[in-house]
């Protein structure tokens, strides 16, 4: 063995190579978006996956409890449209909330802005998590 050379993380590298096939890569990104942390779990990064799996849905739930609004995709109001895009990033929590008709929001509630912030940031953080899973699967990390 060459001095100073460290063997690669075999399990993760093999999984990453499998995920680097185009079809699997798309599937990985879709799964990682739908279930926060699932992409990392798929790639063998268990600790990260479990933390994301708990943190993002919990953040989204707190946003709903704080009476935040799930914004509709109406780009007549650009900021509301962008907020809707950001919230969409949360994946299944967003889909469930829409199905259950949650997130109507109470504009007059003291915590409304806080709720919106939690909902929007949860979605954007999940988008970052998807990008991270993509980078890992491409062998960049």
């Amino acid at each position, binding site marked *: 063995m060459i001095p100073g050379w460290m063997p690669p993380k075999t399990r993760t590298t093999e999984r990453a190579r499998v995920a680097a096939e185009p079809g699997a890569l798309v599937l990985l990104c879709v799964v990682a978006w739908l279930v926060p942390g699932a992409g990392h779990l798929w790639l063998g990064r268990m*600790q*990260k996956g479990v*933390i*994301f799996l708990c*943190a*993002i849905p*919990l*953040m989204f739930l*707190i946003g709903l*409890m*704080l009476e935040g609004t799930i914004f509709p995709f109406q780009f007549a109001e650009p900021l509301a449209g962008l907020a809707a895009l950001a919230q969409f990033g949360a994946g299944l929590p967003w889909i469930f909330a829409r199905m259950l008709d949650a997130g109507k929001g109470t504009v007059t509630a*003291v*915590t409304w802005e*806080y709720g919106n*912030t*939690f909902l929007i*940031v949860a979605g954007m*953080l999940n988008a*970052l*998590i998807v990008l*991270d899973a993509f980078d890992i699967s491409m062998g960049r990390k």
Partner: protein
Amino acid sequence: MRDHFLLLAVFAFFVSLVFAVLMRDDPRAQLRLGAIMFLGFITSALVLGWLMYPLPI
């Protein structure tokens, strides 16, 4: 849950947690970065809050 500072702390905790776990692989390094980010959030919020205090908002 209407305490603004508590909500700020909860928000800072989650964001710091996710960023620390994303940016570091070693658990000790994650804990260190997470703690630094969390304290940075709280400190900057308190400082900005006091700086804005005299403003007629």
